[in-house]
C-alpha cells in the first residue's frame, strides 16, 4: 500500500529512486522495531490503545522528520521520540484532567500515575510472580524504578542497544547511561530476588 504509493510518488526520476530506496529501508526498520516498541510503551503506560497510538505517532514523526537521515541514526532517534511521547502522555494526562475538572466545575483528585498503579499487594514482585508469570513480575518491578533507570534498562536489555545508542536515545552521557543501568539492574535484582 504505502510502497505502491512510493512508486507512484515524485516525478523526478532521481528523487523517485531516492524516495523508493529510503521508503523500503524505512519500512524494514519500522517492521523490525514496531512490536518491541509497542511492548516497551505498554510496560510504561499500561494501556494497549494508547501504547499503539504512541508507537504510531513515534513512527510518523520519525518518517516525517528524519527519513532523510542516515539509517544508522534511526534507532536512537526513534527511541528518543518514543521516550518523549511516553513522557508527554504521562504529563498530558495530568493537565487534561485539570482542564476537564475545571470545565465540569467539580473538585477531584489530580491524576497521579503512582496512585493509579496497582495496589500494594500487586506491587510486590514476589507476590505478582506467584499469581502471574515472570514477565508480569518484571513489569511491576520496572514500574517501581525511577524513569531514567527504567529507560536505560529497557533500551539496553529489551531493545539491545549499546551504551552509545542508549545515550543518544536518552539524551544524556554514556556515563549516565552506565550509572542508570547498573542501578536499575541492582534494584530489579533486589525486587525480584531469584524469581526470574
Amino acid at each position: 500500500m504505502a510502497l505502491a504509493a512510493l512508486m507512484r510518488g515524485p516525478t523526478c526520476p532521481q528523487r523517485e529512486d531516492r524516495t523508493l530506496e529510503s521508503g523500503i529501508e524505512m519500512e524494514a526498520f519500522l517492521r523490525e522495531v514496531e512490536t518491541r516498541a509497542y511492548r516497551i510503551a505498554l510496560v510504561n503506560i499500561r494501556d494497549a490503545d494508547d501504547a499503539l497510538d504512541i508507537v504510531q505517532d513515534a513512527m510518523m514523526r520519525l518518517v516525517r522528520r528524519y527519513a532523510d537521515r542516515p539509517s544508522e541514526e534511526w534507532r536512537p532517534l526513534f527511541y528518543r521520540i518514543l521516550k518523549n511521547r511516553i513522557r508527554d502522555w504521562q504529563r498530558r494526562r495530568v493537565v487534561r484532567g485539570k482542564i476537564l475538572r475545571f470545565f465540569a466545575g467539580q473538585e477531584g483528585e489530580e491524576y497521579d500515575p503512582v496512585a493509579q498503579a496497582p495496589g500494594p499487594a500487586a506491587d510486590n514482585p514476589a507476590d505478582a510472580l506467584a499469581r502471574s508469570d515472570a514477565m508480569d513480575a518484571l513489569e511491576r518491578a520496572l514500574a517501581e524504578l525511577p524513569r531514567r533507570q527504567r529507560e536505560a534498562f529497557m533500551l539496553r536489555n529489551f531493545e539491545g542497544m549499546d551504551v552509545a545508542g542508549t545515550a543518544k536515545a536518552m539524551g544524556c552521557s554514556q556515563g549516565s547511561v552506565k550509572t542508570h543501568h547498573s542501578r536499575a539492574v541492582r534494584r530489579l535484582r533486589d525486587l525480584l530476588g531469584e524469581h526470574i
Partner: protein
Amino acid sequence: MSTESRKGDSEFEERAKQLFDESVDRLDARTRSKLTQARYRALEQLTAPAGSVWRRPWAPAGAAAAALTVLLVLWLDAPERTVNGTFDMAATSDLELLLAEEELEMIQELEFYAWLEEQVELGDAQGVEDGVG
C-alpha cells in the same frame, strides 16, 4: 563488584531479555495488524504533501482562543503556581504541551469532552443507584 555478582547480573539481564522477547512473540494478531497499519500510515508521509493544522484558514483564530482558554484555566486552577501574576516554568511547560498540534483539536472540543465526562459520571451514579456498581 565481585565476579559472582557480575555473573549474577549478567544472568539476570539475559533472563529479563528472554522474558521480554517471549512477551513480544506472544503479541496477538489484532495488535500486530494495528502496528502494520500504523507503519503504512507513517510511510505514506514519504509521498504525501506536508499537511498541518496551521494550514487550515481558521487555525490562527482557533489557536489564539485555545491559548487564552488554557492560560485562564491554568491560572485559575493553580494560583499558587504564580508569582506576581506571572507563570512559572511548570505552567508554561503545560501550555507548550497543550498547544501541540493534536492538543489544539482537543481544546477546541472542550465542551464535548466536559459533556462526555458528565455523561460518564451520570452513568456511574445511575449504575450505583441501580446496584450495578
